[in-house]
C-alpha cells in the first residue's frame, strides 16, 4: 500500500475534524475555543503570559499549527546527528599541507589558547590517508569514504566553518541541541514545536530516532522540553517493539474493546465537564482521542513494508531491521505525515584511535552506515517535492583535531574550533560552500558559523526571529540562542 500525499490529507482532516464528539467539536473549533484559549493561555500553560515572545498556545490543542513571525521557508526539520564528532579532515576537508607536514609538531602559534579533551601536548600532525575528489559544480571536496555524498554535493549547502564552545561529548551535544552546555534547556525541536505546533494530528510533533550501538551521551536531556511544557518534548520512537512507550493496549484488550474504553472514559469526562465547567477537561478528552489514534498511526508509520523495494534499496534499508538507513526512511515518512521536527542520532563517531574507535575500519564502517542513506534521503525528498520545505541538517557536536592522538592506533581528539556540517532544502542555497579553514584545519579563516548562528538560521527558516521566540521562566525571557546568534544570510536562497 502506498500513502497519498499526507500533508494534504492532514490539512483536510483538520478542516473537517470529524471528532466523534460533536458537542465539543462545536465548541473546540468555534468561538468557544478562542475565548477559552485566552482564558487558559493566561492561566494554565504559560502563566503569566510571556510579554514579548508571545506564542499563543491553545491549551486544548498545544500542538495545533500556529503562525510563525513570518512566512516559513521550512515546514519541517530533519536533523541527522552524528554523535561523537565525525572527522571533517577525513571526510570533507582535504588538507595537502597537513599531509606534507605529517608527523611534525604543530606550530605553537596555532595551539595557543585552544583546549582539548585528551591531548597531552606532544602529539604531531596527522595527514589524512583518504583520497579526496572535487565534485559537482560547486567543486566540494569529498573523500572516498563518502561516495554517495558525491551525488548530492550540488543539492546541499556546506558549512566548513562551524565552531562550538565545549569539548566534552555530553556538554557539546547539549550545546548543539539546546544552545547551552548543561542539561535543563529546551531542545531545538522543542522550540520549533513550541513556536509552530505540528501539522500532524496523529503523531507527536517532535520525534527522535536512534541507531548505533548505544544511546548518545546526555540521553533524554538532548530532546527535553526544558522549561517549556512537556507537550513539546521529543518523543523517542523505539526501533524494536512498540515505537512509543505504553502504546500497546494491555493484554486481552481488543481494538474494539479499546474503542469502547475510550468512549466510556470520554463520556465520564463529558459528564464532569458539564458539572464543573473546567475547560481543562476538554483538553483531556482531546488528548485521549489522540492517544487512541496514535495506537494505529505509530505502528503504521513504522511499517516499512509499505515502501517499494526500489525505495528500500535506495536507502539501503530492510523492512523489519532497525538501522540508520531505516531511520532516514522513517524520517521522510514522518515529515510526510506533518511531523515538525525529526531528529536522528547515529552514535560512535568518536574516533580517538582506540581499538574499536579508529580512523580505519571503524570510521569506514560509520561512513558505510550513513553515506548512502543520508544521500538517498535528500534525493528522495527532492523527487517527492518535499525538499523545498524540509530542512535537512547533518553533523555532530564537534569535529576532530589536525593532530593525531596516540592510543592503540592513531586517532584524532575533539576539535571545537573548525568543523563541517551540511544543510539541505528548506530555503538554503544548494551547492553553496561557506567557510574556509587554515591550511592545517586548526581555525577558521572565513565564513565562521557558530552553533548559535546555526540555531538562529534554523529558526529563521522556520519563520522565527530567534530574538523574539522567547519563553518566560524564572523571571527571564529565555531563547534558544541566549544573547547570541546571527542568521547566516549568505546560505539562504
Amino acid at each position, binding site marked *: 500500500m502506498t500513502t497519498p500525499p499526507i500533508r494534504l490529507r492532514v490539512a483536510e482532516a483538520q478542516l473537517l475534524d470529524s471528532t466523534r464528539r460533536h458537542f465539543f467539536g462545536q465548541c473546540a473549533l468555534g468561538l468557544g475555543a478562542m*475565548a477559552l484559549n485566552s482564558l487558559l493561555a493566561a492561566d494554565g500553560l504559560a502563566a503569566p503570559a510571556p510579554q514579548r515572545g508571545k506564542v499563543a498556545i491553545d491549551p486544548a490543542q498545544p500542538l495545533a499549527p500556529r503562525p510563525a513571525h513570518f512566512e516559513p521557508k521550512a515546514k519541517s526539520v530533519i536533523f541527522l546527528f552524528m554523535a561523537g564528532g565525525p572527522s571533517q579532515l577525513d571526510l570533507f576537508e582535504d588538507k595537502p599541507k597537513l599531509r606534507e607536514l605529517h608527523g611534525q609538531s604543530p606550530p605553537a602559534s596555532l595551539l595557543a589558547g585552544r583546549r582539548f579533551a585528551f591531548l597531552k601536548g606532544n602529539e604531531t600532525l596527522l595527514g589524512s590517508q583518504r583520497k579526496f575528489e572535487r565534485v559537482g559544480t560547486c567543486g566540494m571536496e569529498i573523500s572516498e569514504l563518502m561516495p554517495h555524498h558525491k551525488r548530492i554535493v550540488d543539492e546541499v549547502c556546506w558549512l566548513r566553518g562551524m565552531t562550538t564552545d565545549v569539548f566534552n561529548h555530553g556538554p557539546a551535544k547539549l550545546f548543539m541541541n539546546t544552545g547551552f552546555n548543561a542539561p535543563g534547556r529546551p531542545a531545538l525541536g522543542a522550540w520549533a514545536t513550541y513556536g509552530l505546533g505540528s501539522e500532524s494530528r496523529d503523531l507527536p510533533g517532535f520525534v527522535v530516532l536512534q541507531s548505533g550501538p548505544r544511546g548518545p551521551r546526555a540521553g533524554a536531556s538532548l530532546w527535553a522540553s526544558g522549561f517549556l511544557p512537556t507537550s513539546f518534548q521529543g518523543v523517542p520512537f523505539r526501533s524494536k517493539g512498540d515505537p512509543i512507550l505504553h502504546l500497546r493496549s494491555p493484554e486481552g484488550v481488543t481494538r474494539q474493546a479499546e474503542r469502547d474504553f475510550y468512549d466510556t472514559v470520554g463520556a*465520564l469526562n463529558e459528564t464532569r465537564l458539564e458539572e464543573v465547567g473546567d475547560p481543562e477537561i476538554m483538553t483531556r478528552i482531546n488528548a485521549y482521542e489522540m492517544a487512541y489514534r496514535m495506537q494505529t498511526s505509530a505502528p503504521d508509520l513504522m511499517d516499512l513494508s509499505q515502501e517499494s523495494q526500489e525505495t528500500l534499496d535506495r536507502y539501503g534499508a530492510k523492512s523489519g531491521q532497525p538501522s540508520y538507513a531505516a531511520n532516514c526512511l522513517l524520517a521522510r515518512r514522518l515529515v510526510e505525515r506533518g511531523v515538525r521536527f525529526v531528529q536522528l542520532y547515529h552514535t560512535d563517531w568518536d574516533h580517538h584511535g582506540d581499538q574499536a574507535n579508529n580512523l580505519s575500519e571503524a570510521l569506514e564502517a560509520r561512513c558505510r552506515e550513513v553515506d548512502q542513506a543520508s544521500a538517498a534521503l535528500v534525493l528522495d525528498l527532492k523527487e517527492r517535492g518535499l525538499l523545498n520545505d524540509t530542512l535537512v541538517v547533518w553533523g555532530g557536536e564537534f569535529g576532530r583535531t589536525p593532530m593525531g592522538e596516540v592510543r*592503540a592506533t592513531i586517532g584524532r581528539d575533539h576539535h571545537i574550533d573548525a568543523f563541517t556540517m551540511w544543510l539541505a532544502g528548506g530555503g538554503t542555497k544548494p551547492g553553496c560552500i561557506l567557510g574556509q579553514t587554515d591550511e592545517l584545519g586548526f581555525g577558521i579563516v572565513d565564513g565562521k558559523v557558530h552553533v548559535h548562528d546555526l540555531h538562529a538560521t534554523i529558526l529563521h527558516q522556520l519563520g522565527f526571529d530567534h530574538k523574539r521566540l522567547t519563553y518566560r521562566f524564572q523571571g527571564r525571557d529565555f531563547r534558544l540562542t541566549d544573547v547570541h546568534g546571527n542568521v547566516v544570510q549568505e546560505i539562504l536562497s
Partner: protein
Amino acid sequence: MANRRLVFCGAVLSILAVRQSSALAEEKLPERISFNEHIRPILSNNCYYCHGPDPKHREADLRLDEREGAMLSAIVPGKPDESELLRRVTSDDEHELMPPPASKRERLSERDTAILRRWIEQGAEYEGHWAFLSLRQQTLPAVTNESLATSAIDRFIQARLEAEQISPSDPADRSTLVRRVSLDLTGLVPSPAEVNAFLEDGSPDAYERLVDRLLASPHFGERWGRHWLDQARYADSNGYTIDSERAMWPYRDWVIQSLNEDLPFDQFTIDQLAGDLLPEPTKKQLVATAFHRNTLINEEGGTDKEQFRHEAVVDRVNTTSAVWLGLTVACAQCHTHKFDPISHREYYELFAFFNSAADVNNRGEAIAVSRGEMFGHPVMAKPSGPDPEDAARRQAAWEARELARLDGMAASKVAWSPLEYLEFETKGGASFQRLDDNSLLQDGRAAPKDRYRIVARSKLEDIQAVRLRVLTHDSLPKQGPGTAGNGNFVLTDFNFITAGQKRPFQSAFADHEQPDFPIRGAIDEDAKTGWAINVGPNSKGKMNTNHEAVFILEKPLFVPADQTVEFTLSHELNDNYLVGRFAIDVAETAPAEPLPYETQVVEALTTPRDKRTKEQARLVAVAFAKAEVQRQSRKQESTTSDTAQLMIMKELDKPRETYVALRGDFLRPDKEVGPLSPGGLHVIQPALPAEPGRTRLDLARWLVSPENPLTPRVTTNRIWMRYFGKGLVETEEDFGTQGTPPSHPELLDWLAAEFIRRGWSQKDLHRRIVTSAAYRRSSHARSDLMEKDPRNLLLARQERLRIEAEVVRDAALAASGLLDRTLGGPSVRPPQPEGVYAFTQNSKRWVAETGSQRYRRGMYTAFFRSAPYPLFTTFDAPDFQTVCTRRLRSNTPLQALTVANDVAFVEIAQGLAARVLSELPESNVADRLHRAFQLALARPPSDRELSVLQGFHERQAAELKAEPERAALLMPHSHQRLDASAAEAGAMVLACRAILNTDSFITRE
C-alpha cells in the same frame, strides 16, 4: 443537555465581550499614582535596559531606576512640560523618540504617558521595589459580610471581593473537600472509611480535626517533602552523561522527618545551608547539608574538574537565591543585572560563600547513614554477637544456596570452542608462535607496554562467553605464564571486537587473582587497573601455573560465519609485565561463576550435615563466616543497602580566592578587581555587610533573620501556591522588578509576619491556609467570574489542579489498596518498560522489585537524571538538573497512554478490581462499580456516571464470556481465587481502568 451547551458557550461569548470593554476601563486614570504599582512597570519594561543599573549598557549616562539620577536631567518634579522624559517618550521626531524605534520597542501607549505625566505632576516620588521593603504591619481589613470572613486570611480576601462586588462560591461539598485536603496534605486519596467518618461527623470542628489528623500523618512529610526536594534538585544519580547512581536518600529522609517534626523553617534553613559550620553539629545537621550536594558530578573522561566544580558552585548560588530570595541572579553571573540592581560583583560576592567547599566534581566528604536513622530507629548490623539461632538458620539457608549453585554448575558445563587464529601481532612489532595445542607464545620482541591484537575465526555463530587461558612455557621466566622476572603479568584491558564495534562484558571471573589486581580490572577500560597473578598472604592459588579467566558478554552475540572476531590484550601499567603464552576460547552459553572454595570445603559442603567430621563442620562454618563478611561489605557499598555513604558539605581549611569571572567564564577571572569576600545584596535591607571571614553560616542566618523580608514572603507565597495553583505573587520564582506584583499584598505580608511570629512553624501556616474559607470553596467554574475575574486572581472560588506525577501513582496505589506505606529508605525500582535506557550512554541497573516494594510511593522510585522513570517525565516532573520551584501542568496524549497502558497502572486496575470483588463478594455489579468509583474519587458516582460504567461493564462482560482466554489475561492468576466469573472479573478490571483514566481521578477538585 442542549440547554447546558447554550450556557457553556454563552459564558464563553461573554468573556469576549469583557475583553473588549476593558479597553474602556483604561481611560480612567488612578487618582494617586503609585510608583511601584504604576510607574515602575513602565520604566522597567521600556527604559531600564539602557537607563538602568547596568553601567556597561547605560546610554547618555542617564539612570532612571534611581530618583537621584532621574532628577539630574530627565524629570522636573511637578513640571511635566519641562521634563525631558515626557518630551522624549511623546516625541514625533524619530531621532528623539524614546524608546528608540531601532530598539524594536513599541511607542508608549497614551495611557502610559498620561500616567507618567500625572506622576510627575504629583512630585515624581520614587519607592523601593515592594519585595525588598520591610514587611509592613497589617491590620485586618473591615468587611461587610462578617460571616464570610471568619478567619484572618478570609478577611483580606473578602475585602477585595467586596470591593469588586464579587460573591465567593459556596463551600465545596464534603466529599470533594476530604479528597482535596487529603491529597494536598498527604498526597493520598482517603479511604471510604475516612470519607465516611468525616461525612458522618456532625460536630462543628469536624473539618479542623480532620486537618489535624492529616497534619500529624507521617505522609504529610512525604507530600511536602517532595515539594521541597524539587527545590533541592534531589535525585539518585550524578548527572551529566555517565550519570552513575549515588545514595542521597538519607537526605530525603531527613527532609520528610524534619517536616513531620515541624522543624522551624529558620532552623530548617540553617541546617541545610550551613549545618556543618554550626558548633558541634548533630549528625542530622550534617545530613541536612546534603542539600547542596545534590549538584551534578561529571564523570566523563577528559573532564576539566575545575570547570565542573565551578558549575556546581554556580548552581549553589542560583539555587539558594531562587529558593530563599525568589530572585534570579543567574544573569549577574555574566554581567550586571539589567533590571534588578544586582551587580556582577555582588554575584561573585555571593559566589564566595560557596566557593570554599571541599568537593571538586567528586564525592568529597561523606558520612555513613543507615536506613531509618533519620526517623530515629536505625536499622543496623547486629551490634554484639548475633543471635545464635538466627545464625544457624542463615547458615542452613546459605548452605542450601551454595549447594544449588554447585548443582547448577555441574548441569551447565560449558563447551569451550577453540578459535582459528588468522592474524596475531602486537603494536610494538612482536609476533607469536602458534603452538600445537592452539596456544600463542609471544616471541619476546614486544614493547615494554605492548598491546596484542588477535584476529580469529570462530566455529560458533552464537557467542556469550570468552575464556582466556594464560599458560606456562619453559621459555618464560620461572615458566611464566607472564614475561615479568617472576613470571607475572598485568593485563590492564581485555577487549572483544566484531564488525568494528566493541562488545562489552558484563562480568568476568578468574580462578586466581592477585590482591588488588582483580580480573574486573581488565574489563573496566581503566589502564591503571588490571589482572595479575602473584600471591598474597591469604592466596590459595600459585603464581607460576596455568590460570584462566572467563568473560561474560553483556548481550549474546551473533557472529556470521564469514565474519571474524578480534581480541586485544593491553598491558599498560608495568613495563614488561606481559602475558607470555595464552589461548582464547569461546562458548555459546555463559558458565556460572565458580564457588570460591577449595576442594575440601566443597567436599565438606556436599557431605550431609549429620555426616560431617568436626573439621568439615569447621570448614563450612568458616566459609559461611567469610561469606557473611563479604555480604556485609557488599551491602555497604551498594546504594540499595541499609547504609549509605551520604555526600555532605565541608569547608576547606584555607578558603579559595574568588574573583569576578568575566562574562561568567571561569577561565577569565578578573584579577584586577582582586579577590572578593563573601558579601550580600545591598538592595535587601538590611543587606549582609561584606566583611572578611563571613561564612555560609552567616549567609544562612541572614536569610532567616526576621528583618529580611524576602525569605518569609517567598516561602509563604510558595506554600500558598500549592493550595491554589498559583501564588499571591504569580511569578513565585521572581520577586524582582520584572516579576508580577502580589494580588493581595497585605495578605502576603500578614502571612509572612505571622510565619515569623509563630516561630517559623510550617504546620501552623498549612493549618491556617487549609482551614480558611477560601481554601474550602467549590472549584466549579462560574460564568459570572469568567467575566469579572477570568483568572481567578481574587479567589472567589478554588481551582481544579492536576495532581503531580508522583501523586498520580500514589493515589492510584492507595485506591487499589496495593500501596506499601513504608517511610523512607533506599530508593526502589518499580517495574518500568524495557528500552528506557536505549537512549542513554550507560544502562542503569534496573531489576524490578518484587513483593510490596513494587508498590512504594512514587517519591521513592530511583531517579536517574539522564533517564528518568517515564511516568514522571510524562507528568511534568522536572529532571532535577537544576532547582525547580514550580512544576508545569501539561495535559498530553502520552499521559493518556501511560495511565491506560503502563504495566504499573494495569496492575493497579487489577488490584482495584480484585479489591472490590473480594470486599463485596455478595453484591451486584452496580454496587461493586459504585465502590470502585468511591475508592478512586472519594465520592459516589452520579446516576449517569454509574450507568455509563455499567453499560461498559455489561458489554465487555458479554464479550469476555465468549472469549475466556482474554478474560484470563485481564485478571491474572493471583487474583483468580475470587468468586466472580472470569468474564465478570475481566470486565471489572476494564471498568476500574476506565475510572482511573478519568480526568477527575488525576485532578484535585
